[in-house]
């Protein structure tokens, strides 16, 4: 990944994010979006986050694999279910994955 491309991502993402955050406060003056549009946009979060979970757990480049990450994310899921703090969830996932790799040689 070239330096230029990385900075392009940083700058464009920063500007676009501020535009998304500020559009309502600056332009709409409190007029709510049509409910239909709000419904769609609000579902983007779950859809994209779940995609990131799936890819982060199973994708190795363009291949789908089952490796130590599955254990780590599985333990994380249990911890989330038990309402563990997010920090603990992330640390557990990393520790379990690292442990599984160490045991596997």
């Amino acid at each position, binding site marked *: 990944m070239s330096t230029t491309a990385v900075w392009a*991502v940083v700058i464009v*993402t*920063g500007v676009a994010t501020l535009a998304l955050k500020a559009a*309502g*406060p600056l332009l709409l003056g409190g007029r709510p979006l049509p409910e239909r549009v709000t419904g769609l946009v609000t579902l983007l979060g779950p859809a*994209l*986050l779940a995609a990131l979970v799936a890819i982060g757990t199973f994708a190795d480049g*363009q291949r789908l694999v089952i490796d130590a990450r599955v254990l780590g994310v599985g333990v994380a899921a249990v911890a989330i279910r038990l309402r563990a703090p*997010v920090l603990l969830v*992330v640390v557990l996932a990393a520790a379990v994955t690292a442990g599984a790799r160490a045991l596997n040689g």
Partner: protein
Amino acid sequence: MSEGPQERSYRHGARAALPLAVAVFGFGLSFGVLAPAAGMSGAAAIVMSITTFAGSAQFAAASVLGAGGAAATAILAAVMLNARYLPIGVTVAPWLEGSVWTRLLHAHLMVDESWAVAAEGSGRFNPRVLLAAGASIWTAWVLGTIGGVVFGNVIGDPNRLGLDAAFPALFLALLAPQVRDRGSGAFRGLSLRGRLPLAAALLGAAIALVLTPFTPAGVPIVAAGAACLLGLRREPATS
């Protein structure tokens, strides 16, 4: 010492945000470690935390870059993840007054956590709580990123420490509250009825996994956004 309602609001915001800021500092550390591992320079990671200030989108952009995806794909994934800030911004807009710059500052400091803390129920938001909570969370995020960038050079390969699994675990932790029923209190205004968010999450994951072997990195994540079209199947209006 006498304290007016304004000072009390700032103080309340800062106090309510404290446990969140600790967790966000941890995210910042992970981002500071993982982003350079994904091919971003430490400086780029820190500038991104200062300017973008949106955790999941930053992790998404970094993971697309780390997987060899194109810059446009990384930007698109991050922007789609941040699309929720459009309606979130609209919910806060009626309570934000003052100059363009004041409102821009509030908008920049508006993230999921500060937005939740600033909610006073029935669609009311306290802009001072938003500002104080947002500022502490932003500070924690930026300091964490700097710490991670410095710390990351010491600890070396994040995969050895299982940090590649920290990515999906973090997203799962961010996802969980979005698919839980939360039809009360702070989230009443934007809460989606029923299991629609869970259905969108499952469909999004399925789309991403199915497309992974056949498309360039990053594309499956963006395509998963199509799962939000489930929202077109509206239940009868409940007014």
